[in-house]
């Protein structure tokens, strides 16, 4: 979200402060007011960012003092088959999760954007998963999709279909995680789209109506194009979160079976806190950081370019 916002800085307006005394008072007050925030963000934001970079060039096991490793962590990464598998799976996950969530939440928002009796109940049903924690989501879906006693397999059997392995199947685990996380994020996307739909100027809809436009046509040709900035934000936001997937994997599959659902952050977690390869994990973290930055900036660049092409 921040990335989308930060580029447009509003004009800075500082009150005309009185004489020299007032200005000196402002010096003091400014630093006094800002310093607690600066201290905490520095200590837990900036210092670890630099430290992490240094750590990625070291061998460290959290206990003994680290030794210099040069580029060997990064070099080892390029030969690590599990790392590459986790990269492929993270990308596959992202490529599925982002569009499904985006289109799904647009359709749900369109359906919810009307005043009919009981709409608040439907909205509640859509929004409740947003506040359900990722851990609870994982536990609940683990039960729904339990291969032996889960309700989904019961229903499949009843319909005469073969029971599935779901999280225990190497072929299905990642797709189950996609489905589960789409459920968790659909309400968020819907919320953003609903707010976007409601900020479409009424004059546009009135003009469309005067021109004899049907309601459905007005939705696709008038309202949806107005949602471009909102959609751009959502794509960026969903991508960032998809690349950082961890909680649901930890709770349901622990990256398995046979690494079939190991995503980058899960592998990073394993390297750091199960194998105690802190330096190697830091290298993974930095690769992830650069990838997220590049993808985010790339998406922003693309949307702006598309906007310019449309305008001309």
């Amino acid at each position, binding site marked *: 979200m921040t990335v989308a916002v930060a580029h447009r800085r509003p004009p800075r307006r500082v009150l005309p402060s009185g004489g020299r005394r007032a200005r000196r008072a402002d010096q003091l007050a400014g630093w006094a*007011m800002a310093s607690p925030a600066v201290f905490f*963000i520095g200590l837990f934001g900036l210092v670890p960012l630099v*430290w992490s970079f240094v750590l990625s060039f070291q061998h460290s096991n959290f206990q003994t003092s680290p030794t210099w490793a040069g580029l060997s962590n990064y070099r080892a990464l390029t030969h690590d088959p599990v790392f590459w598998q986790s990269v492929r799976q993270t990308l596959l996950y992202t490529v599925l999760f982002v569009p499904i969530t985006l289109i799904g939440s647009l359709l749900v928002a369109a359906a919810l954007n009307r005043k009919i009796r009981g709409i608040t109940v439907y909205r509640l049903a859509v929004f409740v998963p947003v506040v359900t924690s990722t851990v609870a989501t994982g536990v609940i879906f683990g039960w729904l999709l339990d291969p032996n006693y889960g309700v989904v397999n019961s229903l499949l059997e009843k319909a005469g279909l073969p029971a599935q392995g779901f999280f225990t199947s190497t072929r299905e685990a990642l797709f189950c995680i996609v489905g589960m996380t789409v459920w968790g994020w659909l309400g968020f996307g819907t919320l953003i789209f609903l707010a976007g739909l409601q900020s479409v100027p009424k004059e546009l809809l009135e003009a469309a*109506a005067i021109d004899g436009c049907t309601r459905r046509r007005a939705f696709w040709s008038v309202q949806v194009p107005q949602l471009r900035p909102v959609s751009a934000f959502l794509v960026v936001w969903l991508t960032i979160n998809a690349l950082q997937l961890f909680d649901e994997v930890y709770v349901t599959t622990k990256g398995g079976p046979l690494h079939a659902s190991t995503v980058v952050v899960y592998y990073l977690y394993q390297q750091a806190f199960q194998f105690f390869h802190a330096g190697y994990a830091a290298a993974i973290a930095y690769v992830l950081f650069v990838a997220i930055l590049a993808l985010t900036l790339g998406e922003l660049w693309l949307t702006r370019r598309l906007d310019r092409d449309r305008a001309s």
Partner: protein
Amino acid sequence: MTTHIETTPQHVQPGVDDVPAFRRSRRRRPSAWHLVLAPLGLVLIVPLLWMATTSISTLAETRRFPPGLPHSVQWVNFLTAWRQSPFGTWLLNSTIVSVSCVVGNLVLCSLAGYAFARVRFTGARVVFIVLLATLMVPFQVVMIPTLLIIKDLHLVNSLPALIAPNLVTPFGVYLLRQFFLSLPPELEEAAIIDGAGRLRILTRVLLPLMGPPLTTLTVLTFLNVWNDFLWPLIVTSSPHTMTVQVGLATFQSAHFTNWPVLMAGTLMSQVPVLLLFVAGQRYFVSSIASTGIK
């Protein structure tokens, strides 16, 4: 508020949807959209309903075929979950951590946001840009050194370790700074002429106007911290300091096959936030939406 809507088609209604007079046949009540919305809502809510159903069933009932509602409500599942694991402690820990982070963000981000928006001091611009840059850093990138810092401070396995990294967020500073910039400076001029200090202006003149952004910051901080999993997972290992999310994950591995008790525990862990959400749905929705729109 929706009761009068369908009766008079000519009546101009205030809803978004009903503004222009689109070509359409006279709408029958009830709206046909229920046929779309009811199954949709049901599909989305089914996982949570199934959690609730399982939590009041016996183990045998969860294994019968086809699945259905329990014969009698088994409250004992909740009792078992509560007795076997310190859910009370976990919920209390989560509450302490979340509330501390909310208060920290409200106070410290207001101060810093105001300073960066209105007070002229050396280095303000550079410092602000550097703070803003940390917004783009995913937590996973900094989590290992953060843990090392917490270790050096001898805070591992403590509530302060859970609170400190989230006590101030660059997002909060940014959000409130933008809000202060949107206020007319004239508001403060009179107070400045009267010789009021900056802190006094902030608390007496501006604070009463800060309802909406502070609500947003409260809701988002609370949700983020309450539902946070990775940081509490790596920094706590004792059941006494765990938050409810990490507690639930350990509870899950301990009761992997006793689904009714596991679902009872899961439900208990979600109840506080669910109740808050239902009570303050309006605030939740506008807070989450405002971050997306801006």
